[in-house]
């Protein structure tokens, strides 16, 4: 810096008109008689002009903020919790079991009903005093051979057992049926005693479904099983992604 001269800061501020009136008057008075300070001032002015002249860098891209995307309709987050998926899987599995049990019951009942329709004409005459015309007797007679037929079915057509998903279940369901139908317990001994030969000629029950076809109940149960398995696997997949 030049001792006794205007400072660079004063000269720089003078260029930008950032001096107070008093400062400005003082510097301008000095400049009027000092060639060195006038040269400094001119060099600073040229420097600032050179800075003004620097090329403007081209913007490489737009810096606009991306507009937030519209909210996507998705399943609620809680639906994708592993716990929830496993609970759904359990429900589907339970539904599958229920459907299987119901299906077995229906299959057995249908088989039983078919056998009943065939056994009834033979059994009714064996009852002797029963009034064939009464509705109550007709309803009762439909239930009469219930305990006997499943046993006969098991005995007469052993190949029927593999068709049932659960042979013990198939046997239990008809055995439980006589409880409400127990209004006429007489037929049971009749079927097991002397009248048995009359019931015996009844043809073996015709299976409702073939060995390779599935009933609607079984299909529904299979569907539930698949859903249960899929949900169970998905729950682990969701858990693994976290």
């Amino acid at each position, binding site marked *: 810096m030049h001792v006794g001269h205007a400072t660079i800061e004063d000269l720089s501020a003078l260029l930008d008109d950032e001096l107070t009136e008093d400062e400005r008057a003082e510097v301008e008075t000095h400049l009027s008689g000092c060639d060195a300070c006038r040269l400094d001032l001119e060099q*600073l002015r040229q420097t600032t002009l*050179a800075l003004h*002249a*620097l090329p403007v860098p081209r913007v490489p891209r737009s810096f606009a*903020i991306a507009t937030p995307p519209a909210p996507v309709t998705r399943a609620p987050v809680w639906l994708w919790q592993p716990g929830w998926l496993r609970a759904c899987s359990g429900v589907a599995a339970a539904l599958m079991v229920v459907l299987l049990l119901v299906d077995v019951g229906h299959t057995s009942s249908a088989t039983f009903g078919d056998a009943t329709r065939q056994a009834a004409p033979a059994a009714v005459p064996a009852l002797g005093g029963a009034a064939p015309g009464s509705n109550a007797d007709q309803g009762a007679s439909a239930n009469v051979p219930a305990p006997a037929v499943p046993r006969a079915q098991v005995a007469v057509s052993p190949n029927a057992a593999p068709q049932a998903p659960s042979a013990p279940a198939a046997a239990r369901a008809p055995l439980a049926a006589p409880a409400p139908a127990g209004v006429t317990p007489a037929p049971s001994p009749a079927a097991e005693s002397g009248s048995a030969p009359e019931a015996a000629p009844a043809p073996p029950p015709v299976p409702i479904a073939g060995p390779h076809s599935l009933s609607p109940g079984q299909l529904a149960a299979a569907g539930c099983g698949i859903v249960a398995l899929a949900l169970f696997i998905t729950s682990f997949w969701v858990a693994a992604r976290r």
Partner: protein
Amino acid sequence: MAEPLVQIDEVRWVRDAQQGNVEAFNNLVERYQTYVFSVAYRTLGNPDDAADAVQDAFLSAFRAIGDFRGGSFKSWVTRIVVNACYDARRAARRRPATSMEAIIEEAGEAPWADTSAEDPEGLALSRAALATIEVALSELPKEQRLAVVLVDVEGLTYEEAAVAMDCALGTVRSRLARARARLRDALLATGNLS
């Protein structure tokens, strides 16, 4: 009349942006991105780092627009980009950087220089003189460089620069004077000024 209309637009955009209107904020981005990128580029000396800093700065500005209490949006956003540049500079210290001198030697001029820029006013400054001043600028202490970039390159007033640099007016004045003196010496040393 143009200036007031521009300011009216800006006030409306700021108000709408404070309500969460992204398009309104992007109008502000569109208006200032060239200036903001220029500041970042001159501060960091690297176009890629500058672009990252500018993107960060505008995102930060959008998040903080609710805190803007009027005044010069330009000064406010400059302060944000300056902070983003300082953050970028701290991060860049951990990796080797390409100096401005090396960039200029390789490219012959500042990268992405806008060829439509005005010729030096009343000066017969050669490309060599501009290259000299680019290099000298990049070698200034960061506070001095920022002062000269804001005032001499970008044309901010002392008051706007003080807001952007978060310092007093007197500090701007002294930093600017020292920076100009250094740049002048660089031009004199290379024979680009007499």
